[in-house]
């Protein structure tokens, strides 16, 4: 229970009664109706929403026609984990032996086709590099946020973003990453990184974004 900064007091009631014309005697019809009124606008202390790094634009922004197609596919898991790096995790876990200094260097976003959540070859390659970084940084946890373009309704896109985040997470788990180290969230279409209202901008905004937690 959080007390609101804006309490809304009940204001006095609104009374209604019928009035009669001067030609007739007055009619006593009185009743009460309680009314509510919200106080004038409170002081706006707008803390900006956590900004995405617009500089981290993807190197690959696939363009895809906007279609009504819907594709079902189970999240793809690789046939075999990349063996060399999983050995690295088990034997030399204490230090960062990842070939990448940061997740961003490994590639922090994977991109999706319109209204789809299956991973492209490109996406799998990036996630495989992310897995290498995660293995090399055993103490770290990650957050994967699913994002959508603006060409869908708000609530559907929240659900679609959840699918995209889960598809990326499941692929990492398939590579041997501990599920406990991965958290997912969907931002739907609420946190685009590309302002362009075009096929190119939408393609950039359809992604799963891997971030470092803690």
């Amino acid at each position: 229970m959080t007390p609101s900064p804006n309490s809304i007091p009940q204001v006095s009631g609104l009374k209604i009664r019928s009035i009669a014309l001067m030609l007739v005697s007055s009619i006593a019809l009185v009743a009460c109706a309680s009314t509510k009124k919200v106080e004038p606008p409170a002081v706006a202390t707008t803390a900006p929403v956590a900004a995405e790094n617009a500089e981290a634009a993807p190197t690959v922004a696939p363009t895809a026609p906007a279609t009504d197609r819907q594709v079902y596919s189970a999240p793809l898991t690789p046939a075999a984990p990349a063996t060399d790096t999983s050995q690295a995790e088990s034997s030399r876990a204490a230090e960062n032996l990842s070939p990448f200094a940061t997740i961003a260097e490994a590639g922090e976003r994977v991109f999706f086709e319109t209204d789809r959540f299956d991973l492209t070859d490109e996406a799998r390659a990036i996630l495989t590099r992310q897995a290498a970084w995660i293995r090399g940084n055993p103490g770290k946890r990650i957050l994967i946020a699913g994002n959508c373009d603006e060409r869908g309704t708000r609530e559907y896109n929240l659900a679609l973003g959840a699918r995209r985040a889960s598809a990326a997470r499941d692929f990492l788990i398939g590579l041997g990453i501990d599920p406990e180290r991965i958290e997912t969230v969907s931002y739907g279409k609420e946190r685009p990184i590309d302002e362009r209202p075009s096929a190119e901008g939408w393609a950039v905004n359809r992604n799963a974004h891997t971030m470092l937690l803690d």
Partner: protein
Amino acid sequence: MIMTPRSFLFPALTRTIRTVLTGLLLALALITPAFAQLNVSVTDGHRRPMPIAISDFSGPHGGSIANAVRDNLARSGLFQVQNPDSFLQREMDVNVAPRFADWRVIKTEALVVGRGGTNAGRLRVEFRLWDVYGESQMLGLEFSTTDENWRRIAHKISDAIYRRLTGEAGYFDSRVVFVAESGSRTNRVKRLAVMDQDGANPSYLTDGSEQVLNPRFNAQGQQIVYSALSDRGIKIWVVDIETGRKEAVAVPGNMAFAPRFTPDGQSIIFSADRDGDVDVFIKSLRTGKLSQLTRNPAIDTSPDMSPNGDQIVFTSDRGGSTQIYAMNADGSGVRRLTFGEGRYSTAVWSPKGDLIAFTRQSGGQFQIGVMAADGSNMKILAEAYLVEGPTWSPNGRVIMFQREGGPGQSPSLWTVDVSGTNLRKSPWSAPGSDPGWSATLP
């Protein structure tokens, strides 16, 4: 004592009109033998709007009250509100019959005259609605409230006129909860806001630290449910509009969204994510009991319960494309309602439960439409680069929604008559989205 305008006003009006008419007819029997039946059809949006004149009220807030009534009636699309500059009779007394001939010259059919006064610190406003051609009073009412509440009197007067002339309940004394948007597209601030249906008295209920999505009133108008997106999840909140208290609705997982009250206000239906699978749930606010209503690997979201509580419509892509489905309140009997080309989502029941409004995507555009409760008789009401999130006026005549006219434009709130006519921007001109219309206020 709390009484609804419906239960209270109507018998009162009937009595007043009958009494007044008796007196009038006695007095005017020789002058005006013909009594015109003045009414407006609301079933056909293409009918000629009724010319109506609203003279400035005398007394405190008189001009402002008259203006608010004019704006309300004009925005409904059912009335042609006469320009006060054209009035021949300027000095009006609420207790004296107007010079009807003067009003017939400007071809007005209905005339509103009013007077305000202050009594024991309270504002009292009385008005009469006259049938200009019938030369008779159709309505005489008085309202009283605190002085700062004068706009509500204007809305009550508008509702009374609307009801008297259309035969349907009005919707002007109501509020809209919505999301006030600011900031750039890539750094959007989205705050929970409430305003009167005409855009007046805006008030912000959250500080913008989280992105507020899809707020809705309960049927009683006392509470608002919404979801708030933060970096690590999306949570459902209920805020009590009277006390300002906010309470999180505890739900397993970190992604719960698309919340609406059930019609009785006792439960929330919503969707939640479990490992990428979004299903529809219901949670009792009283007992805390949580039930899962859909069990399907597809997306199931945007649930809305019918006013009588026995059906739930929702959005699902279980059939391969995004469509609207219905099911019984317990999750049984799922059936698909939409089969047309395109993608359908965000179904919302009309207040009477006879129609469902929805969002459609087709041909690169978005549309707002309505259909019968069984999915038949689909009709598109509005189309643009982006329109979504329809919500019904309390009387089911008007649909408000969010609209972006073209690529890159800010979202704003628009309304359209359920007949498909009278498309217009809400008087709230700042960027806004996700409107949720309240019931008429008590």
